[in-house]
């Protein structure tokens, strides 16, 4: 059959990685030991690429809540939110999220990916206009195709380009929906949200912020970039995920928009998929409680982030533009990224490789993410391994940007 023929070139590259025994896209963790350690390839490995920002995956209170809910309510709901899959605990978590954000309504989705699909496709329908940051996550791009709106992308983090596009649309019928992210997952940079909010106030439109990587990371109480930038009132919908700082799986949206209840019967990615199991819901609510009650987790995370960022910058690596829990080193080529990644793994350090088209400007990235659960010694150990391997491969202080484009 020829249905897979279109992937022939990619399949060859993929097979090459497998043959070299170094495929970053297919690494089983044989046994996970803690938020920062796992057995990989028979060897205890330091984890520096998990998005487990607050390290809550092994939190005793979170595990206890998951266990108790599973015992009491069973392993799964076996249905969607609009049929048999809405339990009291789903509504309770929605209320807890709304309370945390100080918003009227919360809505829980089965993944963060589906939260973006569900909100974007429902807000921007046929005849509407969707304006995306060019570096948006795949779930935002995919959501933009589901709603039949006219989609244009503006330059990454450019309020001026957004303003230009809104100006061109002035007088056109249809709603304008604008989407940006809190922290961008590839380079760890934040959006200039106060400036975006000002553009929105000038031209009008509905502003959606995906705080997937900034929930529990930014803001005085951990609500994310909108809180940090002081523009929560200008943000109409916040979308986020339970799979990073909250250590589980699932997605959500919160809003003050009157009438937003209707989304529950028009948003297909909300309606036509099974709801999250009781154990996941209970764990998420317990993790949210930990996030609120223990601001020191956020502080430790950000200290670790700064430590890694400064350490790698000090070694001469070209990094994203600002320190954040996502620390990506720009590699001169995909081959260099694969080689560096594999050598680090062999030395006992797990990181990620990110490649175009998922990355901006065709960059090949060796991506790390830190956790509040890392000790300063573990961060130093990681920096030491980057130094050792970078030296050996001749990749310390490589003029990566020039070579990449």
């Amino acid at each position: 059959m020829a249905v897979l023929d279109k992937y022939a070139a990619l399949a060859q590259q993929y097979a090459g990685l497998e043959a070299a025994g170094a495929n970053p896209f297919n690494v089983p963790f044989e046994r996970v030991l803690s938020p920062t350690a796992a057995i990989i390839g028979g060897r205890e490995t330091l984890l520096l690429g998990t998005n487990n920002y607050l390290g809550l995956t092994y939190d005793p209170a979170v595990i206890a809540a998951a266990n108790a809910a599973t015992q009491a309510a069973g392993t799964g709901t076996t249905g969607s939110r609009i049929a048999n899959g809405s339990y009291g605990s789903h509504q309770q978590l929605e209320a807890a999220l709304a309370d945390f954000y100080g918003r009227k309504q919360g809505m829980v989705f089965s993944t963060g990916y589906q939260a973006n699909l569900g909100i974007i496709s429902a807000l921007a329908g046929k005849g509407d206009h969707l304006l995306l940051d060019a570096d948006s996550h795949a779930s935002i791009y995919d959501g933009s195709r589901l709603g039949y709106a006219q989609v244009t992308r503006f330059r990454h983090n450019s309020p001026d380009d957004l303003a230009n596009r809104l100006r061109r649309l002035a007088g056109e019928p249809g709603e304008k929906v604008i989407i940006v992210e809190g922290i961008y997952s590839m380079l760890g940079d934040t959006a200039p949200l106060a400036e975006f909010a000002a553009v929105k106030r000038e031209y009008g439109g509905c502003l959606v912020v995906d705080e997937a990587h900034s929930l529990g990371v930014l803001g005085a109480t951990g609500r994310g970039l909108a809180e940090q930038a002081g523009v929560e009132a200008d943000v109409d919908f916040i979308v986020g995920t339970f799979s990073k700082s909250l250590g589980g799986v699932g997605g959500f949206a919160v809003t003050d928009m009157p009438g937003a209840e209707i989304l529950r019967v028009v948003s297909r990615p909300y309606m036509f998929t099974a709801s999250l199991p009781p154990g996941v819901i209970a764990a998420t609510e317990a993790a949210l409680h930990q996030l609120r009650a223990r601001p020191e987790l956020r502080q430790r995370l950000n200290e670790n982030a700064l430590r890694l960022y400064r350490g790698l910058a000090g070694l001469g690596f070209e990094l994203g533009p600002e320190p954040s829990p996502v620390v990506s080193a720009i590699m001169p080529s995909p081959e260099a990224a694969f080689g560096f990644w594999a050598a680090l793994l062999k030395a006992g350090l797990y990181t990620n490789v990110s490649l175009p088209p998922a990355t901006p400007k065709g960059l090949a990235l060796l991506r790390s993410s830190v956790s509040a659960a890392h000790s300063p010694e573990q961060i130093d150990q990681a920096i030491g391994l980057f130094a050792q391997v970078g030296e050996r491969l001749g990749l310390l202080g490589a003029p990566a940007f020039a070579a990449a484009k």
Partner: protein
Amino acid sequence: MSDQANEIREIIFDTLRAALPQDRPLSDNTHIIEDLGLDSVAVMDFVMEIEDKLDISVPLDKIAEVETLGDLIATVQRLKQAA
């Protein structure tokens, strides 16, 4: 061929020459992905330059329909006339 189409062609070809790593022959029949080796994101980034120069917005579904430089010229011209 209208003056406007010629002007748009010139802007697109100039922008492409500045963006491509090597000199390639460009014509209306040039396939943007196959002949120029751009990936989908690179094509969208290149179209952004055209959008700036001509003060238009090209929706993503229109970009997706474009195969050759001639297609792009026609799409841009239609959008410019509607603006």
